[in-house]
């Protein structure tokens, strides 16, 4: 199966991604959804605003898929990241992976979200008011930067 990666302004559907990785050989499908929370360290969050360097983000997502396939025997890998405004309780990212046996899909999904947070050039601004927000930073990025001298 080919990898599916997409950075999009549209809402994400877990059903759609699960169907993309579904295949008669698969015995297991694991997914992860990152969802907008209504709070951060006690502050009320209205919505998130995401911005991406789209062509590089999609290229990094493709190379993330290749790294998964080097490590685990998986069938389908589908990753979508939403950009623009993401309201509370909606998904900003969904990862779906299928495999014959469950450990590969489960472990690959965990790896994928960690790797995505370290490498894929997407930025999130937490909006606390209509015009008042804060750009966030993933600790995974600094670990990677330190390790690779970026």
């Amino acid at each position, binding site marked *: 199966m080919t990898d599916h990666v997409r950075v999009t302004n549209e809402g994400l559907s877990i059903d759609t991604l699960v169907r993309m990785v579904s295949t008669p050989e698969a015995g297991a499908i694991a997914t992860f959804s*990152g969802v907008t929370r209504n709070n951060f360290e006690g502050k009320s969050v209205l919505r998130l605003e*995401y*911005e*991406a*360097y789209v*062509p*590089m*983000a999609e*290229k990094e997502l493709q190379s993330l898929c290749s790294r998964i396939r080097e490590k685990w025997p998986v069938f389908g890998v589908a990753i979508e*990241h939403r950009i623009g405004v993401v309201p509370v309780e909606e998904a*900003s*990212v969904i990862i779906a992976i299928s495999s014959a046996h469950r450990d590969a899909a489960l472990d690959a999904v965990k790896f994928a*979200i960690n790797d*995505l*947070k*370290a*490498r*894929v*050039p*997407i*930025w*999130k*601004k937490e909006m606390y008011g209509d015009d008042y927000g804060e*750009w*966030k*930073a*993933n600790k995974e*990025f*600094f670990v990677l*930067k330190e390790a*690779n*001298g*970026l």
Partner: protein
Amino acid sequence: MVETVRVLFFARSRELTGVREANVDLQPGSDSSALLEEIKRRYPQLSDLLQFAAFAVNLDYISKPTVLKHGDEFAVIPPISGG
């Protein structure tokens, strides 16, 4: 002759510069360190952010100073926060 490089700004770096992109002319053979000096000269308000940023040339992260040529796309990657 100069080498023109397209520089992209995202997220906080876009807000600080007020622009999404800029063209910068470099002397032939210049590397990304020279480009960063020019960026800091033009946008001194970016100095702090650049210490924590990563950089990409033509969609790939660079891990050391890299010679730039005409038409290259250079991106300032402030700390990312996808997911």
